């Protein structure tokens, strides 16, 4: 039974890691899937082409907007929340500080400063500069989970192989 539980936990973790982000201001997944009408406006207004539409392999989520931060992260320009006709992207979320797409997590096994190489890529690119990612002892990056908005820029710029910093989506999309 214990093994089974561990397995389930493992599967959940994998899903969690692989789960793409929803655009800024997205409602909880349960409401999101019911209300989104797949009009693609958020994807079409996005100047960086961060938002893409999920394909049919996502089952009932197909056609809904998702962000794969490892490919193109969200640069929190906040244009998508303004065009959403259904309100699944909350229009009150109009500043980057209010966004909560996910929380970044640093793996100390992969992160270069922890291995003895100086690297500040994530720290320097973070849109919530000095707050969401701060340097401990001017060396080791740490994430402030309250301030982190989950844009995924850190995940994109990370120079470690397979990215040492990964954004976990607050909306787990299965």
């Amino acid at each position, binding site marked *: 039974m214990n093994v089974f539980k561990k397995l389930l936990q493992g599967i959940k973790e994998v899903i969690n890691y692989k789960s793409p982000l929803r655009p800024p201001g997205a409602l909880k997944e349960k*409401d999101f*899937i*019911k*209300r*989104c*009408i*797949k*009009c*693609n*406006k958020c*994807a*079409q*207004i996005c*100047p960086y*082409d961060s938002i*893409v*539409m999920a*394909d*049919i392999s996502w089952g*009932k989520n*197909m*056609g809904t907007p998702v962000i794969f931060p490892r490919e193109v992260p969200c640069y929190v320009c906040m244009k998508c929340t303004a*065009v959403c*006709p*259904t*309100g699944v992207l909350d229009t009150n979320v109009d500043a980057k500080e209010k966004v909560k797409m996910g929380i970044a997590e640093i793996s100390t096994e992969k992160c270069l400063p922890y291995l003895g190489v100086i690297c500040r890529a994530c720290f320097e690119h973070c849109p919530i500069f000095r707050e969401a990612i701060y340097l401990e002892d001017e060396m080791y990056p740490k994430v402030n989970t309250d301030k982190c908005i989950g844009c995924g820029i850190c995940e994109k710029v990370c120079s470690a192989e397979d990215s040492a910093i990964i954004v976990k989506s607050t909306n787990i999309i299965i």
Partner: protein
Amino acid sequence: MREFNFYKTLNRTRKVVQLATLLFLFIVPILIFFEVRFIIGNLYSITVGGLDITDPSMVLQNILLARSFYVPLLISAIIPVIIAFLFGRIFCSWACPYNTILEEAERIYSKILAKFIMKRKAKQANKNPNPFIYWGIYLFLTLLALIIGIPLFTFLSAPGIISSQIAAGIIGNGIGLELTIVFAILLSEVIFGRRFWCKYVCPVGASFSLFGTKKTLHITYNELQCNCTIKLEPCSNSCPFNLVPKNSNLYPYCTNCGLCVKTCEKIGKGALSFSFDNNKNSQLNIIQDQEIQNKKVS
């Protein structure tokens, strides 16, 4: 003679609008590809400048599933609802890309067939199906969407899927397997009969039909002017949905495409016409009756 021209040009305008809509679906993503984001969206919901226009069926689904009202969404559905109030289901006949493709395909198909094979005698219905079938299917779909909690209308909206897939293909997200739904719908037409989907099932069309009243644009039939000697009536023969324009229960099935009216002007003597007023028909009858009586007297 003037009226004959009117309905013919009406049909031509309809064809132009249909093709323009199809072209529009290609132009919007091309403009977005070149960073011009004046018009965004697809046939589910479109934004022109700052004006939102949303498909009423999507709004209805949104209200049902979310169990709450989102005011901007309701406002965005006003324009299509007003059009539906005035002209009925003309979205289907004037804009829907699925309908455009099928109509053109059927035209080509019938032309080719006429050359090689003797024209098949169409199975002609004597009367229109009961509206309860239509509303029953619609109610079933809405209840199903409510129970399983999945936005079913978006998956069953052929125009929406076609438009979003065209955009996805051009912008570069790649055409997905969503088009299989459209092919499945096409297959259902092969199995269940011509225009089965549009006629009975399509939730987009049904949501437009919801707003039909007695004052919306409809086809009126004037018995006195009807003198077709051809056994297969040209009006019902020309109807893509296999309806009988002369009989009752034409609505909610009819999309006001005007093909029967056009044919009636061409072959018959204009017994069918479009009108907003429900009583026009009877008034015409009275006038003509009086005229006949006057002639008899004189």
